[in-house]
C-alpha cells in the first residue's frame, strides 16, 4: 500500500535508514513529498532535484573543449567536465554523450568518464525526480517501453533521456506519461496497455 507523505511526517517510530528520510530523536521522518511504502521501507520522491552521486549515468551535450577534456551541458547548474581517453576521437560541440560521474570536486564540478557518443536520435528532458520511476524496479519500465516501441533509450539520472529508432514518437509519449503519472498506482500496467493499444493500430 502506497501512501503520499509530506516533509516532516513520521514514517517509523524507530530509526530506519532510508533514502529521502532523516532520523531525529530515534524516529524516521520524510524530507520530501513522496510515495511511502511501509512494508518495503521505501520513499519515492514526487518532486525534486537531482543530487549527483558517483557512478550516476548522465546524458548531456558537448559544449566545448579539446585534448580529451570537455565541458558538458547536463542541464544542471554545476559545471561538468568530461575527461576522455588519450587515444579516442576528439568530440565536437553539439555531440550528445552518455557518461558516468567519476568524482564531484569541491562540490562544484562534476568529473565525468566512461563516455559513449550517442549519435542521431532525440533528447527529452524530464524532472530528475521522475527518473527512478522511468527506470522502474530492475529496469522494468524502461525495458518495457524500449521493447514495445523498438526504440533504443538511454536515461540519464540528470533527467535527460536519449531515444533513437523504432517508434520514437510513441516512446516519447510513454516517457511523458510516466513523468506526469509517476505518483499513481499500477503505472507499469497502464503504460503497457497504452503502448499495446497504440502499436496494434
Amino acid at each position, binding site marked *: 500500500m502506497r501512501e503520499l507523505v509530506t*516533509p516532516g511526517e513520521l514514517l517509523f517510530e524507530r530509526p530506519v535508514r532510508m533514502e529521502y528520510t532523516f532520523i531525529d530523536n530515534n524516529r524516521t521522518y520524510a524530507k*520530501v513529498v513522496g510515495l511511502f511504502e511501509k512494508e518495503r521501507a521505501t520513499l519515492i*520522491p514526487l*518532486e525534486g532535484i537531482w543530487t549527483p552521486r558517483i557512478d550516476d549515468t548522465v546524458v548531456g551535450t558537448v559544449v566545448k573543449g579539446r585534448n580529451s577534456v570537455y565541458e558538458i551541458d547536463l542541464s544542471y547548474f554545476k559545471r561538468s567536465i568530461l575527461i576522455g581517453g588519450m587515444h579516442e576521437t576528439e568530440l565536437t560541440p553539439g555531440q550528445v554523450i552518455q557518461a558516468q560521474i567519476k568524482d564531484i570536486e569541491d562540490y562544484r564540478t562534476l568529473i565525468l568518464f566512461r563516455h559513449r557518443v550517442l549519435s542521431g536520435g532525440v533528447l527529452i528532458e524530464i524532472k530528475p525526480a521522475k527518473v527512478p520511476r522511468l527506470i522502474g524496479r530492475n529496469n522494468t519500465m524502461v525495458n518495457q517501453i524500449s521493447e514495445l516501441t523498438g526504440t533504443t533509450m538511454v536515461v540519464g539520472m540528470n533527467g535527460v533521456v536519449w531515444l533513437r529508432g523504432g517508434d520514437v514518437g510513441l516512446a516519447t509519449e510513454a516517457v511523458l506519461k510516466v513523468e506526469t503519472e509517476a505518483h499513481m498506482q499500477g503505472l507499469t500496467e497502464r503504460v503497457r496497455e497504452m503502448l499495446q493499444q497504440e502499436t496494434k493500430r
Partner: protein
Amino acid sequence: MASKANKPALLIDGKRRDGRGFGDLRPLNIEAGILKNADGSAYVEWGNNKVLAAVYGPREVQPRHTADPLRAVIKCRYAMAPFSSIGEHGRTGPNRRAIEISKVTREVFENVVMLSEFPNSQINIFIEILQSDGGTRAAGITAASVALADSGLYIRDMVYSVSVGKIDGKLALDLDMIEDNYSEADMPVAIAPRNNEILLLQMDGNYSREEIDRAIDMVLEAGKTISAKQREALRSSYSGASR
C-alpha cells in the same frame, strides 16, 4: 497602530466584525504547484489576503563570492504589490518593512531546509503579496513552506505561521487589517510543528507574560488546521492524473 480617534467597533455582541470567535482563523485555501517555471510554488488565499510563493533552486550562487562551500545560501524576497492595499498606492519593490520581513523569513527557512545537502548553491524564495488584509507575513511563510515542499528540496518540517493580537483587551487569532490597525498588540509566530519549535516571533503593543503564554497556545491550536491544509494542498496537487 492607527490613531484611536476613528476607532470602529471591533467587537459586536461579543463577536468580531466578521462574526468570528476569538480563536477562529479566517477562511484559508492553499494550492500547491501552480507556477510551471518555478521549481516549487504555492498560492494562498487567507481571508482577503492573496499570496503567491515560488522557490527556485538549487542554482548557481549570485554573486559568486557569497557562496558557502558547506551549505546552500537562501535568498528571500517578501514584497507587497503596489495595488495590494485598499486606498493607497504602494511603491514597487521592498520597503524597509519588507526588507525586515524578508530577513526574518529567510531565517525561518534556513532552519528547516537541509542546507548542507546543497553546498555551493543558492535557493531563492519569493513571496509576493498580491492583495493584503493583515497577517501577510504569516500567509507568506505558510505559502512558501508549501512551495518548498513542492520543489522537492529536502526539508525537516513544514512551517506554518499565524499571528495573535489583542482587541478590546481580548486575545484574538489572525487579525485582519482593520483589527490590526486598532489592536493593542499583535504577535506573529512561525512554528515547526514536529517539535513545536518557534522559528519566528515578533510582537508589538502590550502583552503580559501570561498573555504571551496564552497567545502561543492559540497559535499551536490553530496550527493544527493550517498544517492540515498545507499537507492537503500537496496531496491534492497529485490527485489528478494529468498535472
